[in-house]
C-alpha cells in the first residue's frame, strides 16, 4: 500500500498516450499467457491427451515397432489434430463469457489483430509443446532417431495452420451450448489438407528422404491461414456479440 502511495506521488499527471495496434496485440498475448500459467493444470491436459492417444495405438494395433512404424505418421498427426482441437474450445470462451471480447471489439483497435494475438497464444501453449512432445511419441512408435528433428519442424509448422483454422471454428461456435462436437465437425474437414501434408512429410522424414515438398505445402497452408483465418475469426467474434 505504501509503495503505491509513493509511486502515485511520483507520477503526477502524465497524459496517457494512445496505444498502437502492435502494443495492443502484444498485451493480449501476454495477458493470455499469464492467465494460462496461473492454471498450469489446464495447459498440460492437451499434451497428456496427445500422449495417451499415441499410447493407445501400440496397445490396439501391435507392439511390433515394424508395424507401428507404418502407421506412426498418421497416428502422430491425428493425435496432434485432436489435441489441438481439445484446447480450442476455451480459446475465446472465457473472454466471451466475462465481456473481454466485447471490450476488444470496442477498443478501436483492429479486432482481426487482437484475435490473431489470441490464436498465437493458442499455438504457443498447445502447438509448440505438441511439436516438442511429438519426437517422444514418434520414438515410441518406432521412428528412427535421426528423423526426430524433422518431426519437430513438421508438427511445429502444421500446428500453426491447425490453430488458425481452429480459431475460425472456435469463434463461430461461441455462445452455443455444448459446442464441442460441433466445433470438431466444423474444424476437422477443413484441417484435412494439414493432416495429409503433415503425415506425408513425417513419413518421408522417417524414411530418411527429403520432406521439403510437403513441408513447403504445410508452410503455404500456414501462410494462407495467417492471412485469412484471423479475418474470418474476427467476423465470427463480432457476430457472437450481436
Amino acid at each position: 500500500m505504501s509503495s503505491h502511495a509513493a509511486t502515485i506521488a511520483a507520477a503526477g499527471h502524465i497524459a496517457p498516450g494512445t496505444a498502437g495496434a502492435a502494443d495492443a496485440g502484444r498485451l493480449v498475448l501476454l495477458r493470455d499467457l499469464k492467465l494460462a500459467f496461473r492454471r498450469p493444470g489446464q495447459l498440460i491436459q492437451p499434451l497428456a491427451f496427445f500422449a495417451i492417444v499415441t499410447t493407445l495405438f501400440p496397445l490396439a494395433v501391435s507392439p511390433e515397432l515394424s508395424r507401428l512404424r507404418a502407421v506412426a505418421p498418421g497416428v502422430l498427426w491425428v493425435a496432434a489434430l485432436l489435441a489441438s482441437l481439445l484446447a480450442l474450445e476455451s480459446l475465446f470462451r472465457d473472454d466471451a463469457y466475462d465481456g473481454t471480447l466485447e471490450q476488444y471489439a470496442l477498443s478501436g483497435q483492429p479486432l482481426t489483430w487482437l484475435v490473431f494475438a489470441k490464436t498465437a497464444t493458442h499455438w504457443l501453449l498447445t502447438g509448440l509443446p505438441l511439436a516438442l512432445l511429438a519426437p517422444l511419441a514418434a520414438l515410441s512408435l518406432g521412428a528412427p532417431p535421426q528423423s526426430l528433428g524433422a518431426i519437430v519442424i513438421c508438427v511445429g509448422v502444421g500446428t500453426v495452420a491447425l490453430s488458425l483454422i481452429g480459431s475460425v471454428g472456435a469463434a463461430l461456435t461461441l455462445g452455443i451450448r455444448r459446442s464441442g462436437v460441433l466445433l470438431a465437425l466444423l474444424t476437422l474437414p477443413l484441417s484435412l489438407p494439414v493432416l495429409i501434408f503433415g503425415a506425408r512429410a513425417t513419413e518421408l522424414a522417417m524414411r530418411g528422404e527429403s520432406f521439403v515438398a510437403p513441408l513447403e505445402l504445410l508452410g503455404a497452408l500456414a501462410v494462407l491461414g495467417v492471412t485469412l483465418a484471423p479475418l474470418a475469426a474476427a467476423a465470427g467474434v463480432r457476430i457472437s456479440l450481436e
Partner: protein
Amino acid sequence: MNWRWFHRLGSPPYVYALARRLTPWFGWLSGLSMLAGLYGALLVAPADYQQGEGFRIIYVHAPTAWMSLMVYTTMAAAAAVGLIWRMKVAHAVAASCAPVGASFTFAALATGSLYGAPMWGTWWQWDPRLTSELILLFLYLGYMGLRGSIDDPQRADRASAVLAVVGVVNVPIIHYSVTWWNSLHQAPTVMRFGKPAMPGSMLAPLLIMLLAFTLFFAALLLVRLRAEILNRERTASWIPEVLKS
C-alpha cells in the same frame, strides 16, 4: 445510405413475387428436360466399349456431383453477398441451398460407389473424387449443424455465412490435397469418369441432364426461398396479401 432500406424493405416482396412467378417455368422445364435426358441416357446412348451398360450410371452420377459443387458455390456466393451488404434475401438464398446440396452430395456418393463397384470389385475406394465428395458432405453437415445450433436467426445467418465462405476457399485446397495424396498411394488410374472424347449420342444426354438438374435446383431454390422469406419477414405488411391466394 439509401441502398440499405432499398434492400431491407424493397426487396423481399419483390423477390417473393418474382420467385412465385418463375417457379412453374423452372419446374416444368426441368421436368421435361429430365425426361428427355433419361430417354437419351437409357435408350439412345450406346453402351461404352469398356464399361458396357454400367456406363449409364454416369448420367445420374455426373449431374448429382455437379449439383453438390454448384449448390455449395451458390450458397457461398449468396452468403458473401449477405455478409457484405447485409442483405436478408441473400441469407435466405444461402439457407435454402444447404439441405438441397447435402442431399445431392449424398446421391453423388451413392451413385459413385455404385458406379465404381463393378469396376473396382469393392463398394468403396479412396478415390480422390469420392473422397472430396465425402468431405464436401461433412462441410454441408457442419454448415447445417452451425445454422441449427444458433437460436437468433440473424446471428445464425451471419455465422453460417462466414463458414460457407471459409468452406468455399477450402474446397479447392481440400480437393488438391486429396488428389495429391491419392497420387502417392495408388496406381494412377483405376478408372476415370467420362474423360475421353465422347461421341455426340453419349454426350448430348449428359449435357441435357446437367441442364435439367440445374433447372431443378433453380425451381427448388425459388420455392425454399419463399418459405425462408416468409419466416424472416416479421412485420411486413405485404405478407397478408400474398397469403390470401
